[in-house]
């Protein structure tokens, strides 16, 4: 799977949308995995379309980001209530790249972390999905219809 190692700490769980998930005092904290950061490269714009306190459904669009190589809608990894967004990212999202597993966390969410994966499962998920991911990316380079 690619040439670059993507470190995955074993002290947390992982989501299929390439976020990590770690229990906090009042819920779970989420951020991008090294794999996601590797795909995006330098993130320079991040905005949230819901406010802290909002109830969100799993896979509901909650924000948007743009990086040097990519752009993406961001989706809630699970159903719950958004407790807070990382305030330090709002003016400068570079911590996502510099320290994605700690200072570059994205948001805290309360909810049931159903469907999250442990580090081994996530690694298997990445390996299994790599062919598909490459196809998805290469397809976009060749055609612009992205719907």
């Amino acid at each position, binding site marked *: 799977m690619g040439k670059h190692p993507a470190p995955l700490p074993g002290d947390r769980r992982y989501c299929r949308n390439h976020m990590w998930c770690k229990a906090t005092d009042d819920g779970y904290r989420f951020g991008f995995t090294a794999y996601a950061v590797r795909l995006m490269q330098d993130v320079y714009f991040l905005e949230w379309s819901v406010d802290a306190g909002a109830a969100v459904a799993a896979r509901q669009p909650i924000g*948007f980001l743009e990086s040097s*190589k*990519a752009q993406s809608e961001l989706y809630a990894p699970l159903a719950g209530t958004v407790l807070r967004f990382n305030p330090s990212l709002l003016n400068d999202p570079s911590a996502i790249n510099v320290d994605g597993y700690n200072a570059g966390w994205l948001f805290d969410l309360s909810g049931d972390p159903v469907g999250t994966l442990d580090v081994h499962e996530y690694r298997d998920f990445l390996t299994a999905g790599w062919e598909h991911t490459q196809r998805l990316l290469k397809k976009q380079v060749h055609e*612009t219809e992205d719907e």
Partner: protein
Amino acid sequence: MARKLTVVLSQAPGKHPAKRGLEESVAAALLVEPGVELAVVPNLYDLGPDHTGRLFLDAVRGDMVVISWLYPRAAFWLLDRNGIKGHYGETALKPPADDDEEETDTDTPVEKKETIGPAGTIPDRHIYTLDFRDAKSPGPFVDEVRRILAECKSRHEAKASSPPPALLELGLPAKSPIEPGLAAFSPDQLLADAGRRWYPVIDYSRCTNCLECLDFCLFGVYGVDDHDRIVTENQDQCKKGCPACSRVCPEQAIIFPEYKSAAIAGANDGVVGGLKIDLSKLFGGDAGDAITAAVAERDRELVADGRQAVGATIGIPKRQEGRDHKPKDELDKLADSLDDLGV
């Protein structure tokens, strides 16, 4: 003719520092440009009918350049929908890495199907819509404004030297109407906060009036005018973030200028330059075909409104209907044999 060229800069929504920086440097460069009258308005798409910026745009009679963060096609039809009409000015400013794309002439499109086309009288002026995303520095914008200025000047000179074709002038507003000019609008009013809006913009050079959007949208956004032509009747009943009708449109004529995906935001077909890879599907977005996505989006909005989700039971185009009655051709047979293999 000493007519000035009006250049309107439409700001990006939000406070993206890189975007604001480019806007300011383009404005600074054009401010000292001879023959140019410069105005800055908030995001064109957000301007309601009563906003001063919109009143100013209404008042401009001559040739106009609008530089916005919207695709040229989106900006042009957005203005047209708001009654700010003109001929489509072809810009030489193209997205990077677009050199070998074929030019499409929007003035005389080669139509396979009959489209609605521009409605009403088109005044004798050109509107050029430039996209801020097509260059990273002010230089290319200034060069393009200069080129347009020269193009408009020679067009007017050519017109002045030949006798006016009488028929074309019928029904047009009187010549040299008194323009209030930019001085009549204070910069503060022009830049008053416009709030955010969300509604579809129909590209009438593509729309065939098939009315599938009217059938599909259950929020009463669409209607028809006196001539049974599709119009966005109630813009503000549209659901923020929902581009479902655009996915349903068979001609890709419905533009949501602020939607994140280029095809829906009004990029021309085949425009690759400046586009970025969209990771939305990897990061949890819905995968699947356009109709499925549209149905899911519509259901989400219906439920948010306290209504029942309808799934695919209402307003789904039946483009495959009747196919079975035709005799099978070679391709069908091939597809059937593949099905039989069970792969």
